[in-house]
């Protein structure tokens, strides 16, 4: 059975040394998030995920969720008890507003917790994870009354939340959605329609489930401009806020699917269910995107979390498994064979994972910091806008690149196990199956690439892109005379140049023929992903070289950062060249084959 050790030392290194969060004490929650408190929080969180959630990951996958004849849904054995511990620990309120019972800690810290939850048990993590999205939408767009009604119980974890977008005939193109909302006399609405692929749509973990549902009002304009967002509780609330009758919403079936078996993916039937409009009529998509952007980052973290846990297990196996001898002569002559970690190709697979994990963690946490900055009133408008612009670019990259790499890395880690990776008792194939959905949901990775190239890159006259390129240029200029960092700044400078060329090519060719943008979008997304991960490695290397120069009681930690970082710069960054060539090959060869000839 797989094991997991929460990488909280690395998280604290990023918080305290790479991002220097003590410099941001003016932001909400940061003054309180001192290193000792953060350490206490992460320590306790790691106990919970290592001892309670991780042991249920494999069994939850094997057992799956059950829909009973009476329509109720139960989660795998142990999930309910584990969820109770999660709630008793107050973990659902880590970043929530203290006004509603939360602890008001930085969202950045929420990302750290999210990674631990996902690595230990992704299917479990999705139950509280979807609540976070629902809470975000209610806190931003809900009326004061709605906030008071729903948030305290959701922050507490007694109620969970869901997002209901997809219908059988529409997923990516929400303009086609049909679910109806008819006004009732009391100001509420009757919601009728079918939603599919609803994660955590029904379950036995919480006493109520607050569904956020996209539907059309009778007078709604056609297309995406006629969609409104509704709150539909599973159990209706009495006037005093206590739980009343069951609402007319039910789980019609749960999907049989490739992975995340411990999470109930439901077909939800709304048969005149009582709902309440949240935000303005016909502007539901905007509210939904609040949830969506948070959720996309969360899905990126899933890619990272699975990459990390599968890497850890592959390392343990590579050290234990003895087979054959090293090409350069025996390394463990006292044993019948050498541990397979002596082999360069095994190391290649492990380092592909690790060199991604450590910089991806840093990049996601930097994005978390920028999100906190972009929402904080104490920050100047200019800095908020800058942060928001960068986050806009990072969101599709974190979602798209992290989940593509996430799958690739779970496969790398599985491969280290040879045949044992393919059988279920070792748990490695579960990581692969669980990772696969992350490339698909919350907008497929193709959609992420289009969002990046079509919307984010040129948005506001390319303001965000220019800000990003300027930041990278300034960073390189700042470190150009630092010889100790040359191994990093050299490849990064090449990468930034290629990124500029890619942007330029898209500007010139994507406008004239949009298929050029479509055909190159995925290449561009991965190209930019490599540049940003290389940028994070360079920032990490700058910290590490300083720490080593100034003396440290843990030189191995910093030396290892430099070793793994160089691996990324020398062996992973060259992919940029191929991606640029692929992009610049344009759409002609992609579009030439007649559809009927496929």
């Amino acid at each position, binding site marked *: 059975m797989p094991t997991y050790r929460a990488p909280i030392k690395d998280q604290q290194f990023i918080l305290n040394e790479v991002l220097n969060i003590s410099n941001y004490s003016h932001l909400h929650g940061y003054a*309180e998030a*001192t290193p*000792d*408190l953060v*350490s*206490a*929080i992460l*320590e*306790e969180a790691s*106990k*919970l995920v290592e001892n309670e959630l991780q042991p249920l990951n494999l069994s939850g996958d094997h057992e799956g969720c059950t829909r009973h004849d009476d329509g109720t849904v139960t989660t795998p054995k142990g999930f309910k008890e584990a969820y109770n*511990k999660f709630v*008793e*620990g*107050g*973990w659902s*309120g*880590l970043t929530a507003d203290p006004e509603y019972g939360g*602890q008001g800690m930085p969202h950045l810290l929420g990302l750290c917790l999210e990674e631990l939850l996902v690595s230990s048990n992704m299917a479990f993590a999705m139950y509280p994870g979807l609540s976070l999205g629902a809470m975000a939408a209610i806190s931003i767009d809900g009326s004061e009354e709605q906030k008071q009604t729903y948030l305290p119980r959701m922050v507490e974890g007694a109620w969970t939340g869901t997002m209901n977008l997809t219908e059988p005939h529409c997923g990516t193109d929400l303009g086609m959605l049909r679910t109806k909302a008819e006004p009732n006399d009391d100001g509420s609405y009757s919601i009728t329609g079918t939603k599919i692929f609803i994660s955590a749509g029904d379950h036995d973990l919480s006493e109520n489930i607050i569904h956020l549902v996209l539907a059309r009002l009778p007078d709604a304009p056609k297309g995406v401009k006629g969609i409104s967002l509704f709150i539909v509780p599973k159990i209706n609330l009495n006037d005093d806020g206590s739980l009343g009758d069951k609402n007319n919403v039910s789980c019609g079936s749960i999907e049989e699917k490739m992975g995340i078996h411990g999470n109930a993916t439901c077909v939800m039937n709304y048969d005149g269910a009582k709902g309440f409009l949240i935000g303005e009529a016909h502007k539901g998509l905007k509210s939904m995107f609040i949830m969506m952007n948070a959720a996309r980052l969360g899905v990126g973290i899933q890619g990272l979390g699975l990459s990390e846990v599968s890497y850890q297990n592959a390392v343990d196996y590579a050290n234990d498994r003895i087979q054959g001898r090293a090409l350069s002569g025996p390394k463990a002559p006292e044993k019948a064979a050498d541990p397979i970690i002596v082999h360069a190709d095994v190391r290649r697979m492990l380092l592909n994972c690790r060199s991604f994990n450590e910089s991806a963690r840093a990049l996601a946490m930097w994005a978390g910091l920028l999100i906190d900055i972009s929402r904080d009133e104490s920050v100047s408008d200019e800095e908020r806008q800058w942060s928001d612009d960068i986050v806009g670019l990072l969101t599709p990259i974190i979602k798209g690149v992290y989940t593509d790499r996430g799958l690739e890395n779970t496969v790398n880690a599985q491969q280290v196990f040879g045949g044992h990776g393919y059988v279920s008792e070792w748990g490695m194939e579960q990581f692969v199956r669980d990772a696969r959905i992350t490339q698909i949901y919350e907008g497929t990775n193709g959609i992420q690439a289009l969002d990046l190239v079509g919307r984010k890159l040129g948005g506001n006259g390319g303001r965000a892109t220019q800000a990003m390129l300027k930041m990278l240029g300034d960073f390189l200029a700042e470190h150009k005379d630092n010889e100790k960092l040359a191994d990093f700044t050299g490849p990064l400078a090449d990468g930034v140049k290629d990124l500029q060329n890619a942007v330029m090519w898209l500007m010139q060719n994507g406008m004239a023929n949009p298929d050029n943008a479509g055909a190159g979008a995925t290449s561009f997304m991965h190209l930019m992903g490599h540049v940003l991960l290389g940028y994070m490695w360079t920032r990490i290397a700058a910290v590490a070289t300083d720490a080593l120069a100034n003396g440290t*009681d*843990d030189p*191995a*930690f910093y030396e290892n950062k430099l070793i793994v970082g160089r691996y990324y710069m020398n062996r992973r960054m060259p992919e940029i060249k191929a991606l640029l060539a692929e992009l610049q090959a344009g759409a002609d060869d992609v579009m030439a084959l007649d559809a009927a000839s496929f």
Partner: protein
Amino acid sequence: MKVMVPVKRVVDYNVKVRVKSDNTGVELANVKMSMNPFDEIAVEEAIRLKEAGKVEEIVVVSIGPKAATETIRTGLAMGADRGILVEHDDEIHPLAVAKILKGIVGEENPDIVLLGKQAIDDDCNQTGQMLAQLLGWAQGTFASKVEAEDGSLNVTREVDGGLETVKLNLPAIVTTDLRLNEPRYASLPNIMKAKRKPIDEKTAADYGVDATPRLKTLKVEEPAAREAGIKVESVDELVGKLKEKGLI
């Protein structure tokens, strides 16, 4: 009632300990440290007594380096009320610890001192007993069950033959065994609250104790690696081998 819980900062039980290359001790640099698990059980038991309305205040005490503050905070996050750190960077032995604790008891006047029966680093299993002797208090060691009554405690002890229950008149010392309880996870709100709970800082000298070690560690070595065994073909061969070695 008031309970005092001494806690020790030790190498985390999950860490695979290594001997320092100069054989002077165990490698502690960059090793994960946490509260001695037996002490964690003691903190948990104190909190249960408080939750049962038998105890009003829990004071967590640690003697060790500045970093032992984290260990005290762990106890505060679980539910203890305040802490005392006796800062001491060098090696310290049970007798000196017991003497310092006696000094703290003199200031704090607890009704019960509840502590782990031993620490998982040196496995001494002495501090509680020494403290009882220095204070002239009753002691219930290796507790697997603690029941508070008016002015006394019933402590069930794990002894070789089974379980023994002793009645202690208060004030008393109780040392905890592993089966006493299962310590809780600290909740997030309590972790946040713990940050604001007071921790007094003291030194051994404040209690007039000379903490200089009375024992000198000569050498610390890894246990010898186990050698591979051999397979015997028959019972006769096994008996022969055992005779050869003079074992039967």
